């Protein structure tokens, strides 16, 4: 599910993704390139900290009031809280503390869980990775396959069916789809019996660890949330890939390949797809932001104990330090993925690698 514009021509967006051509080839140039991109990532991260600070520490009207809402508090307790939260310090000092703490890994203290935020995040990291990772891989495989084939013969039945399905799924709210699947396959509806658990990552009371029974149990719990994410996200990848393929179709080198006597499938796989992959790879990497958004809502619906569910829980108070922590972690991971996207593009496109 996305709130940004659906992918229009991959080319128009990818024109901006491709890094400008560098100098001559060689490892030294790669070092330059890497250094440049790392520097940019560091700057992004710095700005991220500024924004995080502004949103979570400066904007809220009165954190003390939010914390103590509903509880009678004496003036002394309020003064103590103010001191503890550092609200009476000048902005610069607070920001300085914030940056130092963040870099050291001290992301604050959750008000509702009364545990350090960093601890909570580490606890919940693996489930999110598992969910997002498996969903991403499956979505990419399905989406790209469909995109390649529907882009190769646009207007034909496969294309119309696949594109229609993709557009429809793109318009479906992730959380609602999750609820539907929950009703259909977990609670059971009509003739469909309950097949999958209603939530959580494993059946309560079972033994954890790497025992096969446990792995199977987790896998059973993973099916519905993962399916929800895949259904909503594969459409993005499909449209991107389709768009790229259609852009490639007009190119004369495909005619050259046909003239050489290659079969249609060979022309597609050996010539069109490698070229169409270039802008797609970058755009797909950049979709990680969408994936994160999907993860938040899916985890909420399925009570999947990951970072997304943590964010939802943080919203209830609102638990600002926790929200801040998850925000920073999510955003930092997007920065990392953008960096990976640039490096991957450079590796794949010889025009950039050696100019």
């Amino acid at each position: 599910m996305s709130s940004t514009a659906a992918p229009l021509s991959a080319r128009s967006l990818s024109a901006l993704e491709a890094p400008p051509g560098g100098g001559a080839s060689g490892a030294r140039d790669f070092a330059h390139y890497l250094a440049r991109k790392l520097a940019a990532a560091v700057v992004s991260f710095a700005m991220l900290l500024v924004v995080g600070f502004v949103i979570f520490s400066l904007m809220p009207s009165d954190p003390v009031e939010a914390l103590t809402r509903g509880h009678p508090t004496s003036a002394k307790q309020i003064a103590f809280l103010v001191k503890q939260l550092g609200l009476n310090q000048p902005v610069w000092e607070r920001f300085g503390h914030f940056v130092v703490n963040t870099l050291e890994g001290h992301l604050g203290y959750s008000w509702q869980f009364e545990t350090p935020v960093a601890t909570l995040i580490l606890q919940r990291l693996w489930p999110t990775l598992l969910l997002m990772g498996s969903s991403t891989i499956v979505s990419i495989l399905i989406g790209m396959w469909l995109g390649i084939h529907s882009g190769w013969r646009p207007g034909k039945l496969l294309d119309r069916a696949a594109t229609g399905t993709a557009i429809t799924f793109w318009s479906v709210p992730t959380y609602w789809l999750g609820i539907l699947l929950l009703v259909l396959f977990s609670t059971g509806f009509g003739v469909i019996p309950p097949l999958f658990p209603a939530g959580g990552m494993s059946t309560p009371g079972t033994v954890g660890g790497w025992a096969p029974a446990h792995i199977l149990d987790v896998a059973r719990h993973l099916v519905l949330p993962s399916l929800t994410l895949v259904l909503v996200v594969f459409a993005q990848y499909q449209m991107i890939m389709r768009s790229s393929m259609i852009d490639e179709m007009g190119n004369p080198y495909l005619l050259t390949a046909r003239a050489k006597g290659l079969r249609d499938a060979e022309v597609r796989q050996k010539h069109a797809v490698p070229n169409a992959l270039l802008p797609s790879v970058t755009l797909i990497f950049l979709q990680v932001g969408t994936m994160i958004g999907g993860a938040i809502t899916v985890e909420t619906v399925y009570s999947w104990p990951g970072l997304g569910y943590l964010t939802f829980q943080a919203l209830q108070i609102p638990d600002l330090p926790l929200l801040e922590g998850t925000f920073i972690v999510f955003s930092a991971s997007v920065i990392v993925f953008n960096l990976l996207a640039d490096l991957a593009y450079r590796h794949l496109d010889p025009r950039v690698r050696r100019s």
Partner: protein
Amino acid sequence: MAPLLEVRDLAVTYRSGAEQVRAVRGVDFALEPGDTLGMAGESGCGKTTVALSLLRLLPVSAELSGQILFKGEDIIGLGWQKLRAVRWAQASVVFQGAMSALNPVRSVGEQICEPIILHEKASRRVAESRAAGLLDSVGVSSARLDSYPHELSGGQRQRVMIAMALACQPDLIIADEPTTALDVIVQAQVLQLLTGLVRERQISMIVISHDLSVLGETCDRLAIMYAGRIAETGPSREVLGKPRHPYTRILARAFPRMGDAQSRLAPAGLPGEPPDLRAEVVGCPFAPRCPEVVADCHTAAVELWPAGERRESACIKVLDGYGHPAGVAQQTAARAGDQDAAQRTGGPGGEQPGTAELRAEGPGTAGPGAGQRGSEGPAAVLEASGLRVVFPARRGRGAARAVDDVNLTIGRGEIVALIGESGCGKSTLARALVGLVEPTGGEVRYAGAPLRYGSAALRAHRKHVQLVLQDPAGALNPRQTVFDLVAEGPRLHGMRAGLTERVHRALADAGLRPPGQFVGRYPHELSGGQQQRVVIAGALALDPSAIVADEPVSSLDASVRGEILKLILSLRDELSLSALIVSHDLGVAWNIADRVAVMYLGRIVEAGPVRDVLLRPRHPYTQALLSVLPDATRDAPARTLAGEPPDPTKIPAGCRFHPRCPRLAALPAGDERAELCRATPVPVLASGAQAPGPAAAASLVACHLADLDVSGLIEPGKPAPQGAQ
């Protein structure tokens, strides 16, 4: 001997929805083993469709009928497996525009090896060594096997395409516009290579081109296509020398030869447009535009009739009873054709030709500078004086001295042609004269006064000097009507009074009559020639004294080219409009220019009256440009220049042409003049402004060895030896 390829009654129709386009309507020809056939025609005539249909490479929406017998088997009915086996192994293709005809993400070597591995099941190692050998034979170092297409120059890419086409040792090569978009000299190099290889390996070849002169030089036989049919075929020298179809005659004149008095200041063109291929055509498709049409042309079914030994023509006049279409002095027929065309209303597009008159130029006329055109007041309208334009260094590339100290003058009522290859700086110079590019040094002068770059001064300058660009379709905002497009200039300058009249007058001057019929149209509804007229009308609407035209006719069809050139000539005659025509095509200079300046790497190397420079060139570069012009009547092979087109970021020391100069290379070793060429820069040419009087006609040349006669030292037929590479 049975012909290698026989095409019988080939017809190709594209269907999309309810519409159908009959791109090819009944084409017959045959090709003997070892022969080369050239197929010429303008855009939309069907020549590329014919070429692609030979291997069934057309899109799925195309329907073929007829027979294509390749080595006796009909390609049209061939099963897929057999067709794939024929492709490349028996007949291969050299496409144009090799930048996008080669896969950008795979190395050149891989792409050459691909068909070898596919058809001969060879191992990678064997294929690679074959590929290396092929690259050698086309003059590309085999170290380039691992290069990617974008790392090669245009000429090198085209050579790679040729090597690729030879990979499986085919019996037939189909070359579709193999040298379009290449510079003139590179074009000559590639053509020489192609024809040499083909002859050496006894491969038959079909060459498709819109450039008749290229075909005349490279092919044994010619077939001229028009509106999906063949209009004429025969041995190339004869077809070009004595055409037996009116279309051929006009097409041939669109590629003038230097020294041909008939085409001097007399560009040839055709009014109207090619017919709509969606409709059925009754009679001869060329009839609406034909200068020699008779009544029967509209009704009789035309086919290829014998018109001489191994010649055929689809003109009804080759039949007895109609008189001879050729033989009777070409000149009078052509002249009559021009005058008839001037009165004709043209085809459904309604394009009206300009009111051109033929201009006979007597010997000894030195051009307009010699006080012919009533030049009271300053003779120079537009001047570049010591002009320099340097593009600053960017990442990965040094500073480019695009224009490096140029003096150039355009007089009142004078047409000057600026000729050069890509990268020589001519487009930058043109834009500097119009004020779109601010020079780094020197000045631009209008009517003697230097151009200042404040916004008011620039706006005033726009009213005096206007620009016409190469791509008329791109130069017109697709969302504006013709009226708005022409009115844009006056509106920007606040000339609101009488705007409608001004627009109508400009359109009429540009040959779009009646103007009222055009004002409401959008650019995409007009033909290429009409679009360019709209661009010119837009320039004329500001009443300029001079126009600068950057490749004004390069993207137009050959027959339309003449009409636009005629228009420019007529504007000079009627409005005293001066013009600077920038082009890579010397034929344009011959057709309409009074003076010509040749540019190389940012400097003018030779300038003077057209007759002098083009008939008696003194600079080796000019000589090279002239010698590589394709010419079917030439006996000696062309002398091309070695090396690649120059790079303005790396200008050689001394004379900037010396690394490629055949004169320098022909000097005996140790000659001290060689040092002069390598170390001492050549003095910048003066502007060549014509002072009134008979003595003004001399041409200027920038060469240390200008009057050295080395004709005895250079062996004819060999390409000029390489200088410092």
